[in-house]
């Protein structure tokens, strides 16, 4: 990318803090949070919105950060990455269930998987297996297969009932 390109100033809320930064016209939200803010939990897999490794919460909903241009962000937009949920009770329960079920191998897809899981359990605390599969259909894992991941989501939901 050309460095003498016009830089654009943006403001938005990142993990609960109002922030300002400068971005290039073609820069995605994914590139911005990794480069400008050094938040590297969010990963680039395919870069085309098919693998879900770059999933973040945008105004409370999961999106692919690799397809969202940073320059389109406005001061009212709220972005939450896995780092922003480090102290969140539900996210911690999800992460523990992933570990307990052996759902993590290389770990590259996991930040995205847990974001999709978080979004699902937030609105549907007791999902059926079909609902789990549907909610995670936008996240690809190339190590474990999906059974352990599905089991982890079910376990996180089950533990939340107690």
């Amino acid at each position, binding site marked *: 990318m050309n460095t003498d390109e*016009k830089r654009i100033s943006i403001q938005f809320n990142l993990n609960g803090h109002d922030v300002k930064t400068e971005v290039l016209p073609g820069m995605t939200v994914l590139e911005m949070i990794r480069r400008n803010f050094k938040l590297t939990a969010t990963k680039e897999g395919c870069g085309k919105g098919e693998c879900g490794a770059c999933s973040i919460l945008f105004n409370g909903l999961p999106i692919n950060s690799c397809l969202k241009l940073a320059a389109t962000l406005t001061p009212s937009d709220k972005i939450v990455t896995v780092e922003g949920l480090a102290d969140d009770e539900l996210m911690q329960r999800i992460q523990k269930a992933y570990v307990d079920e052996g759902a993590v191998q290389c770990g590259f897809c996991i930040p995205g998987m847990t974001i999709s899981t978080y979004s699902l359990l937030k609105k549907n605390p007791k999902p059926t297996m079909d609902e789990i599969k549907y909610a995670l259909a936008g996240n690809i894992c190339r190590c474990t297969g999906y059974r352990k991941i599905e089991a982890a989501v079910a376990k996180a939901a089950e533990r939340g009932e107690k």
Partner: protein
Amino acid sequence: MSFEFYKPSNIKEASELLKNPGYVAVVGGTDTIVKVKGGFYKALKALVDLNGLFSKEIKVEGDKCIIGSACVMNNIAHNPVIVENFPALAEAALSVAAEQIRNVATIGGNVGNSSPVGDTIPALYSLEAEVNIVGGEEKRTVPINEFITGVGRNVLQPGEMIESFAIPMRKTKGAFQKLGERKALSISKINLGLSYWNDGKPHYRIGMGAVAITVLRVTKAEEFLEAAPHPLSDETIQQAAQYAIETAKPITDIRSTKEYRKQMAGVLLKRALNAIKN
């Protein structure tokens, strides 16, 4: 990847910008950004951010349901007015890609892209939707079946944008069917939207995608079904499916073969008709 970025503050300003060659509109960006990264736009000069300029709402105005062009797939899929009255469109929106895409991909983008496989398009054909277009201060309305003119081509002139969609307000039954390599995220090999309503006599509308350069209406099957005794018999459904096969004029490409697509046109119509039977 060197280009400018503009965030116009109103529709008139956006329209002026989009009159320039190489200026491309972006809202959800789920197709546009993939194309930008892939170098699809050979002469890209600028992206024009239309976020905030068009409505994301769905509302009923008189005898029409108006869907703002910035309305995202998940909002369409779960909106009570759409679910209740236009199930073909709700199912189509729910079938698009995956959760992360459905939260940002807009209906205006799906139609504006004018791909022959855009999933909401056959549903909009089946509901006789109209496209409300705005360019600067002028507005015009075009029926959906006259909007798309070819693969990736439509009637939008430089500076024109889709403002909203208008669907005649009536309670329909309907279904959306598609085939892909997997349920999520696959681009359809073929898709089909069916809507039915009865205002004293039965009406069937069938839109079929990926079987020609634009979505096709299967008028021969529609007329046949409307004249057939109700409830529809298996033989009637079989004959309608045959008309869908005859209507389909698909090609062979990376996603499927023309022979398979042609046969599946009949299968999808059969499935859709069976789905609305009760």
